[in-house]
């Protein structure tokens, strides 16, 4: 299974303050361990929300909102995608990460194809097939 691990933002990450050299090297070591164990598929840090945009949807209206955004606890500062056998394995890995200071890091399992019912998949598939036929038709014309 795959999980996505969300690292929350804090006032420092939002202010663009880089972590200490010590923390960076500890984090690099942790990432290296994840890669060497064949667990890490992807992982990135995110820039402060001062560089972010939001799009609000309301009926036909689309409103663009510029960052920064206030609620720093709900903002994400970085993520990983891990390939693990179970959520427990992800938990055991996360426990080894060099976080501190009461920060709460969240593990969310990613949907797998088998999480969807067979019928829904078949339906989605026939939809997709129709779409493909339409695309092919447009390409020919």
């Amino acid at each position, binding site marked *: 299974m795959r999980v996505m691990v969300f690292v929350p933002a804090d006032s420092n990450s939002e202010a663009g303050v880089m972590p200490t050299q010590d923390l960076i090297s500890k984090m690099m070591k942790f990432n290296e361990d994840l890669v060497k*164990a*064949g*667990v890490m*598929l992807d992982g990135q840090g995110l820039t402060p929300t001062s560089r972010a945009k939001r799009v609000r949807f309301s009926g036909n209206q689309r409103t663009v909102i510029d960052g920064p955004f206030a609620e720093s606890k709900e903002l994400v500062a970085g993520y990983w995608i891990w390939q693990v056998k179970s959520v427990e394995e992800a*938990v*055991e890995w996360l426990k080894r990460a060099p976080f501190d200071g009461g920060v709460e890091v969240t593990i969310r399992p990613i949907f797998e194809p088998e999480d969807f019912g067979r019928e829904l998949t078949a339906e989605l*598939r026939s939809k*997709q097939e129709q779409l493909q036929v339409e695309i092919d038709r447009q390409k020919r014309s």
Partner: protein
Amino acid sequence: MSAGATQEAVAAVWRIESARLIGALLRLVRSVELAEDLAQEALIVALERWPATGIPDNPGAWLMTTAKNRALDQLRQRKMQQRKHEELGQHPASVSQEPAPDTGLEEDVGDDLLRLIFIACHPVLSREARAALTLKMLGGLTTEEIARAFLVPEPTMAQRIVRAKRSLGEARVPFELPPGAQLQSRLASVLEVIYLIFNEGYAATTGESWTRPQLCQEALRLGRILAGLMSGEAEVHGLLALMELNASRLPARTGALGEPILLLDQDRTRWDQLLLHRGLAALERAERLRQPLGSYTLQAAIAACHARARVASQTDWHRIVALYDALVELTLSPIVELNRAVAVSMAFGPGAGLELLASLAEEPALKSYHLLPSVRGDLLFKLGRYAEATVEFERAAAMTQNSRERTLLQTRAQESRRCHSSARRHISIVR
């Protein structure tokens, strides 16, 4: 924490730590059988104690210490026996050769793992035994899980693993990494085992379908670990690229009813983009090393041609033919030549492919290979030679062992026959 939850957490710790643990113990006791036993004993102690004490802050170190203490106990006992033997004037050779224990358990984790992989994949063992032992010692899988994955009864698999460990001991397989000259051939054995595990999951169309993708995942994990340990070996990255690229197509390989969907008919929007890009990146790493291209790297390069084509019609068949040329030269395999003929037919037309098949007809290795008449039927069909195509599809259908495939081939035979009769009608009208 409930007992069940602790058990799951212990299993997770085991998954993460077992290979390193066994690898370090192997350095200490120099016997696969003993190292694995000691690690299992430490696991049992953990399962007994952790539900009450909770999981220690550093569970890996805890398991190491527990197993190491047991190892030292055993060594001490053996030393005591040796002393007794000496007092009696006996000098059993096996005991006196015992090396001094290496106590630096935390160091050289990479080397420990590599040694473990190379021993588990040692050529004295059968391919099946190598695969089972690798999953057990490096994947941290239970015997039950491995048995289920390979669709054999658990006692059979347990026997296979026990026998494999014993064979390693009896053959006195040195636990050091093979020296430079042997390293390449031994590495080939390691890569073969990982790819065998992958294909066991990938090619499966029978059995409990959910256990099979797990084998692909395990092989990918091993491939990723090996790529980290031997980053200077192009073929290691080549194999990883091949597996990542093939695995990226898993979601599109079967239809709603579980029927196989061929590569060119797959809905490419369903390919896993993360794996696809990881595969392309791994291939790039292999090619950047500027070593002679090995068979895995070449196969990955072919898979990459498909991965890069957003629709099947954009496939760069000329490049695929060139890659198959190199692969034929390297492997001299008639099956690869058959694949090359298909690529040639896609690049230069069915007639060109058919010409190549003629030279393969006498190949003994393909005598009972259903894909030869199947491919020939397909090319004849494309050339409008429906009567000949019907014969070939029927022949292929009679040769295959797989019922799904037989149905597919019979359908194609019927289709050819229909086309043949309607073509004849058409000709008579024209006349």
